[in-house]
């Protein structure tokens, strides 16, 4: 599945304030290994994405999300399912 550019851009924008200044973020960035996001920050990310896209993200999908692109694809799938 192709990554939706608008969703990718917005997710990266939401991530920026959650990571240290100057830390690069792209689609291959690993949320935990590269960015060191702890569970609280991951939930903050999820809540902000939910608000911005007006969707609910089930916790069940999170174990399969490692990278930014995994997360974007999961969001796209939620839109498709709707």
């Amino acid at each position: 599945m192709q990554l939706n550019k608008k969703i990718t851009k917005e997710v990266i924008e939401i991530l920026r304030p959650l990571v240290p200044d100057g830390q690069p973020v792209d689609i291959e960035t690993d949320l935990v290994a590269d960015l060191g996001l702890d569970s609280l920050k991951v939930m903050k990310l999820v809540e902000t994405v939910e608000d911005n896209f007006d969707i609910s993200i089930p916790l069940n999908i999170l174990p399969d999300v490692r990278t930014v692109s995994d997360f974007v694809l999961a969001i796209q799938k939620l839109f498709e399912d709707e």
Partner: protein
Amino acid sequence: MMTIFEKFQPLAETRQQLQKNASNFFNVVMEEIISGTEATFNGRRMILAGSNNYLGLSFDSDCIEAACRAARREGTGTTGSRMANGTFSGHVALEQELADYFGRRRAIVFSTGYIANLAILSTVVGPGEVILLDADCHASIYDGCRLGGAEIIRFRHNDVEDLEKRLRRLEKRKTNVLVVAEGLYSMLGDRAPLADIVAAKQKYGAYLMVDEAHSLGVLGDNGRGLAEEAGVEDGVDFVVGTFSKSLGAIGGFCVSKHLELDLVRYASRPYVFTASSSPSIIASTRQALRILSTRPELRRQLWENANWLYQHLRDLDFNLGPELSPIVAARFENKEDAFKLWSNLLEGGVYVNLVLPPATPDGHTLLRCSVSAAHTREQMEHICKAFTDVKG
């Protein structure tokens, strides 16, 4: 290659930090249990201000006597699951008494409160259905959700607007939705906005489960919890609770107005594959349940003590939870500050819970007290003085 223990390295680092700043944290062993509110640790007497023993019933003489009689009569354990040889007449009687006390049609007793949440949440809703849980729900609720096959969605803590938004999004799915909230949230002692949650679940045709673990015996004229206090018991489909707090023992239960709750017994693995509670536990719990109805003065004393500690810590400028309850928690941005105060309180002869994120809301470290009706005036004064001293 990494060893299987490599992933625990962050825990090792936190432990090292704790050992440096609060070395006793890993060595709290109660040596002599003097009462429900006092024990010795390292040979010194200590007031227990973090034991969830809200009504002090773990040392009630009638409860102890009932437990001893049952052990002599029926043995120390059932040695079996409820589905096999582990259903004694006491288990059945307690289930009926819980149903009567709550005014519900069915009750199931479980071996712990944790298992009660695993059993209900992993079974009542399944694949294709949805659980909407408050973000600050207890770990046992999260674990129960994970054990089942339902879709799990969080709503912001105590935010009914956020809950409604999510219920609205789910409307077109036309599936069963179970909303989950707690009576009193265990970390900060705040209540759920239950009347509004009930209104929302009714508007969208959802079901509601309320965990009254910390509110049973504490809230409501008869101690039935937040649903009683808020006047919305009819709107709650499932009440889950524990015997390990106000009832002074260990165990869990679920009561419901739905007759079909009985069917959960056959479908729920945590119920089927666990040994049932020992006769002594069932007997003391039955006695404690009678006390909830017959001794409302315990609840009054509990709230008097809670009010006293809450006001005192507020006057000392501690950053407390948002409302008065028997759970009085001071929040700290800086872990080291909390470690130091916790150690100093222990030195001062007072044990409170030191709770670290992510088990706490908003990433705070907590010094969490839980007040008991059994705390005497002198003990309350000692606890307050210890906090004054550590605040410096």
